[in-house]
């Protein structure tokens, strides 16, 4: 029989105002097994914790219930206090009589009655708790970074510079991500490539970073500290070790008119190409959907020209395995494809803006390439249809963002800023030009951000109209933009030469599949979920998996970089230990009673249950059984509820405990 101590907290007035704490303590003292029932003004305070420690000693208590706030608030506090007094931390439970009782009820009688019941429930549970030890697992001190955009680069360099190895996987032929294609960045207007490319080179040359470009994560097995990652290296048809990057091949390729992905279709490339001159690795790739040799067996000119013999038309996808202890997801974003198929998520609409039909209606990333000095026009703003410099440009914000009907309900956060930047860059290049912006609200929170927007308006003369655009049509080479200026309360039609749509930020293609592979939560839009929005912003609910950058939510470069460094810090903390501990409240299988139906194996979301065989010393099969891998089990308990033979159980939430909790409610 346990000696149970119950400690009821007043939480100042917070609990005591509606719950008669003294009466609770008296009532609880009557429960069989309760040796000590006391109360204190602030149980979590130093005097409160001292009281707990003293009572443990004086009453020889061996299990505790603290009735105060939510266990999410202070369970760790009280378990630690109990641990210091020599009680196994897992023999402490909490009753939530604040959030679930005193704060939500006004009737003192009922609230007091409820508090007593809640404590009784915890008492019934705690007396069946078992002493547990945290699970220790070894740590492989290598990190995987998925995604080589600015966030991934920052995280990788920070971790590698601390002395740990990093494996980076980038889907595209070069790292650099979206930022590599940007022109100048707000609010300082510094050149994007100038600040990014040196970092890209660092990654490419770092002795502790192994870069897999043009590769994707195929599968992830294992658990925190011990992941086994399979990486698919897509056939590049160029041996990047032999290749010197001399450029003979892409200069001789006769297929000149391939639309460049890097330029978002605004420029062209060859069938063998380096996406952009500063690419890392600065090695070409062959577009198998364009190359004549790969499609029909002709040409082969590049192979003949290559002195390094690096071209390999027989190249195939390769799978490689890497062992890592932590995984960092930095898969970034893509733009809402205006008025076009958005893949699975049935986002449709914006037929009224004519994107895809009118050549001079472009999206914001395309505009970035138009103003970029390294872009297809050499930084001269020429509209796509006829190469004429546009005299009037309309910028439309919130395209897809904040549009529940045809798009996404959230704000993409950075569009207000880059649209202001676009108007400035445009004005700086086309002095006579007029920029119009249709906006709903200007969201320019951040250091020097609002000043930046005001500069666009006051100095560079961008005309801001508060209203959405309803329709764009094309008439005699002009785009007729029908909007409204709600501040002037007028409908407003502007004849523009070009229209730039600030399309919403969405997670990259494949983000959801990756989230599922990693066991990380994601929201309805496909953005990865953090473990706690305030206190664990870069961790996920899958231990050992971290997130940074726009895969988590729309964010700008400074924020993505800050998050990336935060992730690096978390990984360094993890790698600072040779072993790591995990919560021991996990499932177990009674192998004696297991009927080997393996329903648990099929339902376990973590693939943490394996089929095993018990053999006699002579190797004769005694029985087959399921077995929990304690490194993988996260303790959800799904196996317990599906087990027909009741052989599965969960520490901390055992069958016995839950049934006796229910029984205590009589």
């Amino acid at each position: 029989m346990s000696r149970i101590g119950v400690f009821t907290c007043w939480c100042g007035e917070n609990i005591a105002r509606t719950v008669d704490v003294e009466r609770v303590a008296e009532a609880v003292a009557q429960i069989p097994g309760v040796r000590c029932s006391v109360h204190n003004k602030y149980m979590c305070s130093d005097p409160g914790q001292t009281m707990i420690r003293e009572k443990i000693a004086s009453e020889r208590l061996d299990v505790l219930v603290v009735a105060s706030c939510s266990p999410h608030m202070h369970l760790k506090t009280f378990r630690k206090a109990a641990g210091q007094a020599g009680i196994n931390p897992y023999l402490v439970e909490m009753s939530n009589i604040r959030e679930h009782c005193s704060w939500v009820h006004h009737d003192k009688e009922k609230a007091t009655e409820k508090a007593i019941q809640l404590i009784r429930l915890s008492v019934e549970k705690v007396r069946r708790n078992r002493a547990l030890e945290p699970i220790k697992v070894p740590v492989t001190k290598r990190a995987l970074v998925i995604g080589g955009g600015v966030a991934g680069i920052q995280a990788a360099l920070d971790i590698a510079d601390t002395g740990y190895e990093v494996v980076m996987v980038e889907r595209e032929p070069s790292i650099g991500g979206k930022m590599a294609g940007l022109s100048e960045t707000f609010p300082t207007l510094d050149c994007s490539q100038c600040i990014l490319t040196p970092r890209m080179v660092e990654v490419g040359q770092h002795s502790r970073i192994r870069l897999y470009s043009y590769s994707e994560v195929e599968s992830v097995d294992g658990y925190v500290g011990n992941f086994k990652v399979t990486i698919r290296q897509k056939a590049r048809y160029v041996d990047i070790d032999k290749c010197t990057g001399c450029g003979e091949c892409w200069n001789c390729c006769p297929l000149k008119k391939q639309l460049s992905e890097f330029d978002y279709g605004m420029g062209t490339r060859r069938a063998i190409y380096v996406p952009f001159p500063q690419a890392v690795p600065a090695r070409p790739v062959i577009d198998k959907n364009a190359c004549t040799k790969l499609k029909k067996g002709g040409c082969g000119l590049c192979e003949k020209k290559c002195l390094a013999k690096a071209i390999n038309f027989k190249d195939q996808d390769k799978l490689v395995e890497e062992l890592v202890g932590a995984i960092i997801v930095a898969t970034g974003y893509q733009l809402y494809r205006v008025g076009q198929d958005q893949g699975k998520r049935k986002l449709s609409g914006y037929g009224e803006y004519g994107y895809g039909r009118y050549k001079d209606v472009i999206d914001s990333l395309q505009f970035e390439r138009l103003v970029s000095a390294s872009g297809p026009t050499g930084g001269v703003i020429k509209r796509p249809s006829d190469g004429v410099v546009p005299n009037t440009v309309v910028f439309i914000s919130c395209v897809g963002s904040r549009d529940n009907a045809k798009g996404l309900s959230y704000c993409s956060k950075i569009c207000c800023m880059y649209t202001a930047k676009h108007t400035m860059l445009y004005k700086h290049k086309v002095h006579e030009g007029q920029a119009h912006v249709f906006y709903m609200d200007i969201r320019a929170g951040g250091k020097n951000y609002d000043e930046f927007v005001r500069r666009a308006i006051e100095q560079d003369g961008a005309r801001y109209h508060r209203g959405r655009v309803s329709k764009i049509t094309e008439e005699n080479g002009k785009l007729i933009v029908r909007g409204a200026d709600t501040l002037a309360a007028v409908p407003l039609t502007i004849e523009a030469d070009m229209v730039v749509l600030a399309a919403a930020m969405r997670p990259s293609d494949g983000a959801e599949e990756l989230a599922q592979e990693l066991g990380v939560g994601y929201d309805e839009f496909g953005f990865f979920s953090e473990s706690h929005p305030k206190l664990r912003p870069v961790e996920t609910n899958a231990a050992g998996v971290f997130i940074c950058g726009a895969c988590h939510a729309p964010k700008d470069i400074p924020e993505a970089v800050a998050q990336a460094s935060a992730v690096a810090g978390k990984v360094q903390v993890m790698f600072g230990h040779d072993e790591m501990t995990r919560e021991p409240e996990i499932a177990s299988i009674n192998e004696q009673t297991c009927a080997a139906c393996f329903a648990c194996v099929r339902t376990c979301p973590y693939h943490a249950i394996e089929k095993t065989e018990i053999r006699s010393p002579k190797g004769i099969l005694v029985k087959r059984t399921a077995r929990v891998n304690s490194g993988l089990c996260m303790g959800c308990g799904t196996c317990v509820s599906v087990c027909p033979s009741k052989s599965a159980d969960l520490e901390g939430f055992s069958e016995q405990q839950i049934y006796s909790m229910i029984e205590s409610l009589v």
Partner: protein
Amino acid sequence: MTTHPTPAHPIALIPVENCYQCGKCTAGCPMAERMDVMPNQIVRLAQLGELERALRAESIWLCVSCQTCSTRCPKSFDCAGLMDILRQQAVEQAKAAPSQVRTQLFQKAFLRNIRRYGRLNELELVRTFKTLAFLKDMNIPFLVKDALLAFKLQQRGKLYLMGERVRDRGVVDRIFQRCL
């Protein structure tokens, strides 16, 4: 989701607070240029509970019910539906803008017409409408304006001196009685 009208719809049931005043309704409205109060302002007035001004606005009578606003609304707010309700209330409360009286008279004449015959009797509709309008504004050119049109229609066999009527006119009248 767009709210579908139900037979009883006090204005309080319309989720006007869903509108975030982006102005796309005004931007796309074919009639906005002629309106005294913009569609988004009409919604705004409804949000503020300033119905008086909305009910007296000419705009609600200029609205052609083309539904462009409701169709493109990013919040799926049924602005065209709100216009309907405001029109109904404006008539009920005798607040309809005097300058737009013709539209009201036309619609009243239209309903009177179908109440009587069950189907539209175009010639009689024009006659009723013109008479009502004339009694209101004594505008002779407007009264006789479409006389020539009648001739042209007749030439094309499109003019029916006697319109159709339904057999069960009783039920039509009773439907009107129950609804009005």
